[in-house]
């Protein structure tokens, strides 16, 4: 095992970094345009072309192989459009058919090639799961040109791509060549897939397109930031995957890249600032606790005795004892409640708050009855906005 950065390792890492970045950016648009599966179908459809071009050119020339892959990938996407257009098949069915038919054909061709005496079977097979070890300076050159070209086009057409990805029809109505721009975006997807094939492989390249964008979605709501983050995640997944693969014998690169991409995705899913699971759970809990507190305050105000025993769980609440105690403790901590004779009563501050809660709820109910059509707006009101509005107290 060699952890040093040899010339070759540097070459590979630079290559996958560029690849990951470009795939992340283009993948974002694919996800937003609901084309996640197109990338997958494209990659699988590329395999037979790869094999055929091996038959035709005869030896393992990288560029001619990629050209074959490119053409058959486009044929696959064309087949999907044709199936959708001329038959009653829905898009998902069309994608599933094209993906499996082309891939099956590719595998058949691959096994035929493996029976040719002296056929370099291993060379072609690395396209299935990806291998970066064999990357040459030549390959890096091609990747650099295409990846930087892709990024340059996205920067140049940022406004136009944003428009057609959000609202293709509006773009068309405004006079933009919306279909052509969309086609350009799709071609960039094809290029990203084909260039990524040798490194990540037919089976998993779609994941490198989709996962960084999907992960970035948990952190931002701005398209620019989304593209940047997605590129960053793509670079990270590519570089770590390739680096680990270079240091572990016989582990193909593709799966490792996806493992690291998935790691980023999982972290984003849980901790993401926008709709991350943890954030959502905390938000829900905060809301529930506030709701419970308001209920307790209102109940205390409406009770004749003005107090609730600590050991009592008022029936309409249906709470557990622990939850009830916690709500009381929190209320005391916020000086809304006070402990008195084995129970709690409202503090001075608490009484005012409780009155507000009760008044607010009553008005709310009345407003919902008298103005049911304004319900959506009414639902947005809460205690803090009531405070600001100087809600009339009873």
């Amino acid at each position, binding site marked *: 095992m060699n952890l040093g950065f040899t010339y070759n390792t540097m070459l590979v890492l630079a290559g996958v970094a560029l690849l990951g970045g470009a795939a992340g950016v283009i993948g974002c648009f694919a996800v937003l345009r609901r084309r996640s599966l197109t990338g997958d179908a494209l990659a699988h459809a590329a395999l037979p072309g790869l094999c055929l071009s091996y038959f035709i050119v005869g030896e393992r020339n990288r560029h001619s192989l990629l050209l074959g892959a490119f053409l058959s990938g486009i044929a696959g996407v064309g087949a999907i459009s044709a199936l959708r257009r001329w038959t009653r098949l829905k898009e998902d069915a069309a994608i599933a058919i094209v993906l499996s038919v082309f891939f099956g054909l590719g595998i058949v061709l691959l096994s035929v090639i493996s029976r040719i005496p002296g056929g370099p079977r291993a060379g072609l097979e690395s396209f299935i799961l990806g291998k970066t070890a064999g990357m040459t300076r030549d390959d890096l050159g091609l990747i650099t040109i295409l990846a930087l070209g892709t990024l340059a086009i996205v920067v140049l057409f940022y406004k136009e791509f944003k428009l057609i990805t959000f609202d293709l029809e509006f773009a068309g109505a405004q006079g933009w060549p919306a279909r052509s721009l969309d086609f350009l975006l799709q071609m960039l997807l094809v290029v990203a897939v084909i260039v990524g094939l040798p490194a990540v492989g037919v089976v998993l390249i779609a994941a490198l397109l989709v996962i960084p964008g999907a992960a970035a979605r948990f952190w931002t709501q701005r*398209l620019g930031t989304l593209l940047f983050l997605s590129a960053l995640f793509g670079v990270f997944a590519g570089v770590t995957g390739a680096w680990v693969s270079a240091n572990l014998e016989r582990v193909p690169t593709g799966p490792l890249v996806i493992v690291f991409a998935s790691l980023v995705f999982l972290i984003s899913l849980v901790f993401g600032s926008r709709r991350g699971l943890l954030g959502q759970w905390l938000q829900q809990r905060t809301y529930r606790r506030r709701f419970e507190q308001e209920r307790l305050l209102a109940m205390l105000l409406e009770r004749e005795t003005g107090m609730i025993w600590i050991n009592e769980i008022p029936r309409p609440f249906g709470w557990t004892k622990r939850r009830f105690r916690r709500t009381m403790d929190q209320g005391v901590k916020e000086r809304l409640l006070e402990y008195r004779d084995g129970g709690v009563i409202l503090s001075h501050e608490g009484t005012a708050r409780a009155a507000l809660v009760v008044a607010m709820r009553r008005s709310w109910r009345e407003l919902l009855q008298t103005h049911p059509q304004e319900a959506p707006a009414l639902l947005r009101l809460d205690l803090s906005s009531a405070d600001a509005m100087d809600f009339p107290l009873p």
Partner: protein
Amino acid sequence: MPGADSNAMSPALLDIHDVTVAYQRRPVLWDVDLTIREPCLLGLIGPNGAGKSTLIKTALDLTPRVSGAIRYFGKTLAEVRQRIGYVPQRESVDWDFPVSVLDVVLMGTYGRLGWFRRPGAKEKAAARECLDMVGMRAMAHQQIGQLSGGQQQRTFLARALAQDADLYFMDEPFAGVDAATERAIFSILGDLRDRGKTVIVVHHELRSVPQFFDQVALLNVRLVAQGATATTFTEDNLLKTYGGRLSILDAVGQAVQAQEPTP
């Protein structure tokens, strides 16, 4: 000849002539003629599948037509693109898209900006003003995913306003919006007409037609009738458009009744 009728001194604002559209050999619009000479609020009325949205999309060249000619202000669409505004159906886009309300409204200025130029301070100021007109200035920086249906519709409307067109097509702007939004849209429509603009609105709810529109076009694959609401929005014409379906007849009765008390 389009626009060569009696008062041919100034060309018609919109002249849809002999338009036929078919999806896979099944006609959706058949020989439709629709001419608008004066600025107006025109309600495009007809049953489901009558081709209302298709007519709009055809007029905007988003759907290919089998035959027919469409002229705006006596010119072709390509010559006057920026003077034509469009409000698509609200459901036609993904509202979880990562852009802010202001971003969406700014898209209205893209056509004027042309290739590669990004919106600047001037465009942003204009977009904010349009948000003001729909009562959503405070929400400029909110993500569109947080908007209610009515707010989504207002955002779309603001985007169209930002384009500052002379003729607008709106595809069901009143569908599924709250009362406040309905009022807001209605007042903006009136405002546009007062400024000499023309608005063509696909509309579903018959009862509000006399209140909202001064002109109507009744469409069911063919154009049944077009003209001033007072004279064209009649029970007779509605029957020709909708046929004798019971539920519709009810609505017709109510609509015509609603029309009568208005001075």
